[in-house]
């Protein structure tokens, strides 16, 4: 599974954020999603999607090696994490997110829920494993 985005298809609905926060944290809270949508209005009239593409730069900079690859997916070991925030600053996509009241940030672990539920396949599986909605 490889997450890719076609931002021109995004409608700003945030279904991705809802299904993500419920999957990751069992909470209805778009602020706790590892994918974010932002509108740019009134001009030019488009949406931007922030998501992790599992590039691994966070793992490279982590001073305590709390972030490791597991089959192409980078995961944080929350017990080892010291909350230094270097990964948050380093992430080129801005896809490492802090949680209020917690040291350890959180990130996408490629569960694919957003790819399955995005109504418009604005985020989709570039490997073709999840059906794409196009019209």
């Amino acid at each position, binding site marked *: 599974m490889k997450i890719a985005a076609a931002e021109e298809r995004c409608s700003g609905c945030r279904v991705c954020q809802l299904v993500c926060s*419920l999957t990751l944290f069992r909470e209805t809270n778009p602020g706790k999603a590892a994918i974010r949508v932002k509108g740019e209005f009134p001009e030019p009239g488009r949406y931007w999607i922030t998501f992790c593409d599992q590039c691994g730069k966070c793992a490279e900079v982590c001073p305590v090696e709390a972030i490791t690859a597991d089959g192409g997916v980078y995961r944080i070991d929350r017990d080892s994490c010291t909350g230094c925030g270097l990964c948050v600053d380093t992430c080129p996509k801005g896809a490492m997110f802090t949680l209020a009241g917690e040291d350890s940030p959180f990130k996408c672990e490629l569960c694919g829920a957003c790819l399955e539920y995005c*109504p418009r396949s604005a985020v989709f599986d570039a490997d073709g494993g999840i059906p794409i909605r196009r019209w």
Partner: protein
Amino acid sequence: MANGYAGQILRVNLSTKGVAKQPLSEELIQEFVGGRGFVAKLLWDELPPGTDPLGEDNMVVMAAGPLTGLFVPGSGKTHFGTKSPATGGYGDSNMGGHFAPTMKYAGYDVIIVTGKAAGPSILVVDDSRVEVRDGAEYWGMGAIDCEKALKDDLGEEFQIITVGPAAEKLVKYACISHDFGRQAGRTGVGTVFGSKNLKAVAVRGTGTIPVVDPAGALEKGKAMYQSCYNKPGFQGWTPFGTAGITDWVNEVGAFPTRNFQTSYFKKYKEINGAALREKILVTDKGCFGCPIPCGKYSRARTKLGQVTVEGPEYETIALLGGNCSLDKIEEVAYANYICDQLGIDTISGGAVVSFAVECFEKGLLSETQIGRKIAFGDLESIVYLLEKIATREGIGDLLAEGVRTAAARIGGGSDKFAIHIKGLEWSGYECRNAPGMMLSYMTADVGAHHNRAWALGFDISGGSGSVTDLIQGKGERPASLSVFDPAAYAAKVDKVIELQHMRPMFDLLGVCRLQWVEIGMEVSHYEEIMPLISGKQMSLADLLVVSERVWNLTRAFSAREIPGFGRSFDYPPGRFLEERIPDGPSAGRVMSKEEADWLLDEYYRKRGWDENGLPTAATLEGLGLGFAAETAASRAK
């Protein structure tokens, strides 16, 4: 208590800048559910009878429902309510976007604003920090410009509602704007903001909405979304949104054209959904949690300039397009943008402008009074009038009052073609050939509005309620619509009542009804998800009882607030009772006063209302509205 609600009512008094937070009561939840239900009950309980709609004591109630902000299709709706400056009675308006979900993440199911700020102000709600701040730098800005300025100043995560210059000038049909293209358009909810010197409300919410069974709610939500995605035709409906019905409404002769002089616009294909998609679309744009979306964001170039705007959706195509005879989608989009920046409801705005043009054509308004010649189909005329209205300059001052008041002052028989009911201008469906839809408009609680009971399809199908009782035809109008047929009309009354409970039910839950109405998502999903959210059973039947309760409460509210309210407020304008449609597929049709009376008699009887159209004490008590029965009894005397 984890039950899908945020659990608090936020009260802000603009006169004192006082802020209070109050727990949401179990009783309010149990009896009124949320959204429109909260609005109706809070207005009844807390608005002092006889309040001046533009005075300090009027309230604006902004309410979410139990499903707002959750992982449920279309969970982005905000319901606004007030005593309407346009009608003097119950006013409400439902808005898409992202505002009410954010209210709930901040911890509030309801925000109530009362009083009047000393100067232009904005209300900022940042989770638990609530502040009335100086808003002078924003006063005078277009509604869209103001939202952009506040996003820049406060942060992009804030969800913001604004009013435009029209509200500041107390135009009676000023709207509330949000998310660069959504509005709470009707009944002057924006006007009341303006009367309170309130320019905007900005909310940021970082919290979680608690539900009883998050894992169960996740799975059920997934099933609801999949149910939408799997409907055949889902992919066919979504490209055009509501603009997609323009063709059909013309083909059945129900399209507002030239101030409802007729019901078929020859150039409708230039302003339909396909024209939007082909010529001006920039992006599809959706509300919170929406699987569709119906929203279309456009960029349009006209001789007056280029604009980007969300829309035009169907009502705007009807009232600024056909009703003003604009025959290019770019021009409809331009007029849409002007209304959106000025903060004018496109429905009432289009109705008032087309009324003014007809007055001019008939010599009831002169070129001198208006300041120039105006004409149907002329974008410049329309923009000119909208700008005059928003500033209350010249003729704009009269037109800003709405068609009912304007006609009363203009005279000359113009009241016959002041197309409104109860002082609210008519929305996008001509009904002289659709008696069920006509009844829907006549009895809608806020005035002439279509969305309570969209019965037009029922009329056109010649429907009498059962699938086996169809009227066959090859595309002609069913015979029953050519004659007044009491048997068929009785079924229409039943259908209107049924829809008046079913459709506003979604306004209780705080979600959009298009997933059910347009896509056919099974309504049983809502029953099934409620226990996972709240831990309690709430069946569709239970919800429909609440909907009926709210329907009667809003009627009782208008009866309390509008002197002499009753049957006489339920009739359509003279045009619809006296003039036959001159051309098009519905040519020759008119509704007679006899039919209108028959429909009202039958409707009141079935509703348990008296002959004057007021809920009886027995009906109110039966719905748990005994507290309103006393007022009803004293009114009846």
